[in-house]
């Protein structure tokens, strides 16, 4: 019963968050101005622009437009993209696999390497290796994504000619975007794993295990890492929304056909339905991720009770 009401409560909270996001996005977009002016050719007359605006419904009062928008969303209908003349949801769905692939691969390599480096740093705490890993992982956070992306292109495509510079189409195309996007997470995960592992290693039950003569690596793998994962996973959930932010710049530079690029181009052209669909979708993913994180707590640490 408890679990059920927990799930129901979370679902309700999630809905509230989504509604709030929809309000923010809708009104922010409304304030950014008139898409008609952007979509008409420069020598269109005022009358033609006005007629276009009226035809698209941009003339109605804002609450009418919001009502229409929410009504549409509830029936799974975000309206047609003003730019592509196709349903916004279709555009999103088409680009989702590319972003999902990029994000998963970036998250995967950075998590694996991050856990490895973080564990080494924690075990060899305060050694030279620890210090080196910490500084290197800080650098990962210090390098802006666009800077890293351009440097990668220059080195691996232009100079060495090992990798294709942009686009999608083979595994080789995936390498640089995944490195650029994953670098920040590598740093974040390394630091988190190190910090939480150090904390866990200091706790009594680990000391007990050690006293029992269980070897160091066994302790780390079987006991410590499992517990150290809790804060790591929490932060993963929180970082997720910013993943799209990073993906956005990565996708633009590498001409990767994902939703980040779609989002930016849609904001720039005031393609309202698409921006709304992308932001609400990201928020949905965020809500679901955090929900999964909550469930993961239960699984990872039975001591936490609902």
């Amino acid at each position, binding site marked *: 019963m408890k679990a059920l009401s927990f799930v129901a409560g979370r679902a309700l909270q999630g809905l509230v968050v989504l509604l709030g996001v929809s309000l923010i996005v809708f009104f922010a977009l409304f304030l950014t101005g008139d898409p008609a002016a952007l979509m008409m050719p420069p020598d269109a007359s005022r009358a033609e622009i006005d007629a276009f605006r009226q035809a698209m419904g941009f003339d109605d009062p804002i609450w009418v437009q919001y009502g229409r928008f929410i009504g549409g969303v509830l029936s799974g209908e975000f309206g047609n993209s003003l730019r592509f003349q196709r349903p916004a949801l279709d555009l999103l769905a088409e680009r989702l696999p590319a972003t999902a692939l990029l994000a998963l691969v970036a998250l995967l390599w950075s998590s694996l390497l991050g856990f490895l480096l973080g564990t080494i740093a924690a075990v060899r705490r305060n050694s030279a290796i620890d210090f080196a890993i910490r500084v290197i992982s800080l650098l990962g*956070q210090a390098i802006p994504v666009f800077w890293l992306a351009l440097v990668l292109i220059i080195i691996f495509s232009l100079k060495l000619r090992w990798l294709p510079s942009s686009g999608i189409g083979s595994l080789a195309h995936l390498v640089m975007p995944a490195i650029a996007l994953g670098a920040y997470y590598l740093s974040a995960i390394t630091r988190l794993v190190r910090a939480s592992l150090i904390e866990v290693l200091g706790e009594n039950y680990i000391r007990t295990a050690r006293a029992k003569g269980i070897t160091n690596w066994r302790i780390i793998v079987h006991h410590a890492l499992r517990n150290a994962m809790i804060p790591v996973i929490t932060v993963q959930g929180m970082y997720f929304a910013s993943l799209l932010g990073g993906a*956005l710049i990565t996708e633009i530079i590498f001409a990767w056909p994902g939703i980040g690029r779609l989002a930016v181009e849609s904001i720039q052209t005031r393609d309202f339905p698409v921006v709304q669909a992308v932001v609400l979708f990201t928020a949905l993913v965020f809500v679901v991720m955090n929900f999964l994180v909550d469930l993961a707590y239960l699984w990872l640490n039975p001591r936490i009770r609902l």
Partner: protein
Amino acid sequence: MPDYWNVRRNADAILAVALLATIAALCILVPLLWPLDPIRGLLTATFRPPMTVVGEHLHPLGTDQLGRDLLARLGLGTAISLGIVVLASIISVVLGTILGMLAGYFGGWVDIVIMRAVDIQLAVPFILLILLIVAVVGPSMGNLIVVLGVTGWAIFARVARARTLEVRELEYIDASRAIGLSHLAIIFRHILPNIVGPQTVLLTLDMPRLIILEASVGFLGLGVQPPTPTLGNLIGEGRAFILLANWLVLYPGLVIGALVVGCNLLGDWLVRRADRRDA
């Protein structure tokens, strides 16, 4: 002997101080003492590599696409970026701390409303939000500070709330309530002092995020207006010339790197000291 003099244990703090002191020198001394103008350039001396002499002036870091001295621009730009980041942080911390304390102290509806607002804030990708807001209010330094500040409060609110929940249960808070102190007085006199420490640490760890964010906003051309330099503008404008004049993005990149590493190391060191004190 206090252990801050232990070089091995405090290697991070020493490196942090060295890095931050260098940056401080850059953004104080260069704008004050360096004779070259960061805004006016010589159109006939564009893209000169570092250590070039033009006329009687040496350009230690070279010149940019409009023939302006990069060292002068980097000094001023770093100072302006730091100003933006610090002011934005103050807005975030103040907003986040107050809302977090209110949520933690009063609980109930106040808590629910504030924490859902936190979730909403975190659910919208930062960059998209900033793109939208800047598109509405127009780009300017003031707007940028407010936007960065207002979009960064959520994490501070979370921490403040958690800490308030802990402190609220302590006996002396009950006692204050018993002697009839107002809610406001309790919050500011008794709860706030317990939150300042953790928030300071969080602040040093959040600064790098803001520095990168300012750079990204500059990269997208939505930040402070040219010709005023900021770290973000310098890299954002210089990136188009990365194949031709890599120093334009290299040096601002190094400064960002030094700042981020410095802040983080300092933050780590503060966390460690706090832990040691707790223990």
